[in-house]
């Protein structure tokens, strides 16, 4: 086990941040912690890195208990949301920082790392002379320098332009595969978590509400929160039970009469809001051509598309 | 470790001050000997007309200099922050900031010599006195006010003024309804700073003041050269007794925000 977390509790003053979180990350696994701000996902990262001490619970990395160890002595490395590149040091010296502290400085290794993240030749620059995407790569190289078995990434893509995000995410995924490092990534962006991870862990109010492979969690959300957070599902109540119904699982041309309230073009599809004859509002995703606002439509879905919620 | 140094630093800062305040209540004629509890030096202070006169003069000069400094410094800061580049701007900036760092003896001597030469050529000012000390202190205070106002205006940016202009406000109306209210805290802070600087100054007042314009620090300095006095201890206690509740009030007010 690369990382083992058991029964983690943490409060800041009167505010509870974590209420009993347990989590295991296997060697070479890419795990995303997904949740809204305040869900406790960043707190887990800071506790694992050693910037805060848990009120209760156990953290072990590579089978070693981390209790009482300062950040310096922990084998994991962290990539900060703001990247935290040292503004007074060159790119080369930023990447070399951890190596120097361990007495393992090797200019060749630094160059190798810069090549790995596609920043070869930028060693002499200062962080302020780099674009956001380039800074992100340098931060990654710096975190990977001492070959940590576990890398913690705090919203690594949040500071980037939308256009850069997909490509950089793919790059992260490639590096994770190449280095064999376990990644624990914190994000509030469901698309990012779904696209990158082997497993996603959904957090709400300091607790884990569901975890599993992205496709499984997406298809079978366990709670109303998960269903709405991942892909804006419709929530239906039938026979006293709640079900999640994905907008893309509803087809035009069924048995349920409805009227189109509004339509939004999403590029690859249209998102319609429809008012059904029995007074419900359903979101429907269709590749188009889409009916006009005010048009009458018929809706339908296969019974297997209904995911029961607890 | 750092908290230990903080504690030691506080001891270093407070030791001489606490000593003064404590011995203000000593009955002994020797200023730092304990001769039993007594309020006699407070009574002596209340009867010391020279000292009271100097204190009153200092307060009036400080209030006048601070007011003048806010007017002049406000203009300086506004020009530096809002006039962009103009011919002579580097010299303007250098002169505006110079009083902040020039050694006091240099400022004092230069202002005095200016006043002497001015009198020679124009007949004004006739000799040195309250007016020249006030001008000297205002010149120093204006530099501090200028820095504060410039920083505040730079931090605010032009957006709000542009918005007011877009809504049809004339330049004067913009200044009155937007700029002035926003820099008011800096002006108030600057007034206080200029007031305290004036109240604490020995060197400028020694150079630019005449025999009729002995401010409190100048008087205290000349007395201290002869040796410390128990009346000075009583005065130190009174200053602390005024400053501590004011500081507490300020902390409470800031803490509420």
């Amino acid at each position, binding site marked *: 086990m690369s990382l083992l977390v058991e029964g983690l509790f943490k409060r800041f003053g009167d505010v509870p941040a974590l209420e009993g979180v347990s989590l295991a990350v296997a060697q070479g696994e890419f795990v995303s912690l997904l949740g809204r701000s305040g869900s406790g996902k960043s707190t887990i990262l800071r506790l694992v890195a050693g910037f805060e001490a848990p009120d209760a619970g156990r953290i072990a990395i590579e089978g070693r208990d981390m209790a009482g160890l300062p950040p310096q002595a922990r084998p994991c490395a962290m990539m900060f949301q703001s990247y935290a590149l040292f503004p007074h040091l060159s790119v080369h010296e930023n990447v070399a920082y951890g190596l120097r502290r361990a007495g393992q400085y090797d200019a060749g290794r630094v160059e190798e790392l810069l090549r790995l993240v596609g920043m070869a030749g930028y060693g002499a620059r200062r962080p302020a002379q780099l674009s956001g995407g380039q800074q992100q790569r340098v931060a990654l190289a710096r975190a990977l320098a001492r070959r940590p078995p576990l890398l913690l990434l705090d919203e690594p893509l949040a500071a980037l332009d939308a256009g850069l995000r997909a490509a950089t995410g793919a790059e992260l995924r490639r590096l994770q595969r190449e280095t064999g490092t376990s990644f624990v990534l914190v994000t509030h962006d469901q698309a990012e978590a779904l696209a990158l991870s082997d497993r996603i862990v959904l957090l709400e109010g300091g607790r884990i509400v569901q975890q599993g492979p992205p496709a499984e969690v997406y298809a079978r959300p366990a709670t109303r929160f998960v269903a709405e957070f991942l892909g804006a599902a419709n929530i239906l109540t039938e026979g006293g039970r709640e079900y999640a119904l994905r907008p893309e699982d509803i087809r035009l041309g069924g048995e349920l009469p409805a009227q189109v309230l509004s339509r939004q073009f999403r590029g690859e599809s249209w998102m319609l809001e429809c008012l059904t004859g029995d007074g419900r509002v359903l979101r429907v995703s269709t590749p188009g051509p889409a009916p006009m606002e005010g048009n009458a439509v018929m809706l339908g879905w296969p019974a297997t598309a209904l995911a029961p919620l607890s | 470790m750092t908290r230990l140094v903080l504690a030691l630093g506080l001891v270093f800062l407070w030791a001489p001050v606490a000593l*003064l305040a404590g*011995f203000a209540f000593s009955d002994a004629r020797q200023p730092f000997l304990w001769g039993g509890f007594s309020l006699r030096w407070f009574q002596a202070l209340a009867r010391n007309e020279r000292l009271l006169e100097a204190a009153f003069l200092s307060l009036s000069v400080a209030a006048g200099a601070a007011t003048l400094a806010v007017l002049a410094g406000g203009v300086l800061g506004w020009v530096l922050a809002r006039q962009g580049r103009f011919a002579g701007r580097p010299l303007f900036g250098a*002169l505006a900031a110079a009083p902040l760092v020039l050694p*006091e003896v240099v400022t004092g001597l230069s202002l005095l010599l200016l006043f002497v030469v001015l009198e020679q050529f124009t007949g004004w000012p006739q000799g040195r006195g309250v007016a020249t000390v006030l001008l000297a202190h205002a010149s120093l205070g*204006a530099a501090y006010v200028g820095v504060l106002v410039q920083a505040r205006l730079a931090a605010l940016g032009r957006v709000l003024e542009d918005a007011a202009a877009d809504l049809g406000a004339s330049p004067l109306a913009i200044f009155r309804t937007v700029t002035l209210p926003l820099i008011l805290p800096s002006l108030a802070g600057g007034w206080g700073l200029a007031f305290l600087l004036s109240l604490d100054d020995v*060197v400028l007042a020694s150079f630019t003041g005449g025999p009729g314009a002995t401010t409190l620090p100048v008087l205290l300095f000349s007395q201290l050269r002869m040796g410390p006095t128990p009346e000075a201890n009583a005065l130190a206690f009174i200053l602390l007794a005024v400053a501590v509740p004011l500081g507490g009030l300020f902390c409470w007010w800031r803490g509420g925000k």
Partner: protein
Amino acid sequence: MIRAIAALWLALLVGAPLLVVAAMSLGVPVDGLPPYRIPLLAGEGMGEAEAWSVLTEDGHFLWALWRSLWLAGVSALGCVALSYPMALGLLRVPPRRRMAVLGLVLLPFTVGFVLRMAGWVGLLRDSGLVNQALIGLGLITDPLPMLYSEGAMLAGMIHGYLPFAFMPVLAALSARDPALEQAAADLGAGRLTIFRTVTLPVTARAGLAGFLLVFIPAAGEFVIPELLGPPEALLAGRAIWQEFFSSRDWPLAAAASMALLGVLILPILLWQRAPR
């Protein structure tokens, strides 16, 4: 129009005085009122520049200038060296009580500069509190001569000028990004290494500004050496004061001021270039 008023203020109260000092340094002292004559202003050319030859040929002034820079340098270094750990300590105080502790740091300064120095006299003189305590403890029998020494002067300088270094250092330290130091810790740096390789370089501009903000005015300090320093200590501020008030040699005092300004021009330019 507004700019013209501001420019007039600066020209009259900052620029003109410095020009007058420069002119005065070329004058000669005379008996009478005013006690000088400036050939340059009387349209008689540059004149002898007597004061300048006295200044450069008399080793006294150059020595005083050198000693002033040394004293100012040590005082400024002391202020910055004390400001860093004090400010870091202050920032580790919980935010609820931080304002109060900051108040505790700044309150002693409300007593006023001259009275604070009186406090140091009371602490350090032969019959002062420190000597009373040492004798009372039986550690010494005769009082240690502490007042009127270099040490007393230095203590007074650091006590007098500390806020000028403390406030910029505190501002820079409280504005620094905590993630930088956390990143350094995460990469294996110890506490002292973090301070040396991250905290100090990241706040170096403020540290330098604080140093200069003490160094420049301290180089001309007159009151503190006069009250606490050795009577024979020759310093630029004292020299200017004595030439002006005691010897009534205004041209010499003006030339000494110009010389002091001349050696301070580099640090002043350095300070003005530093962003605030």
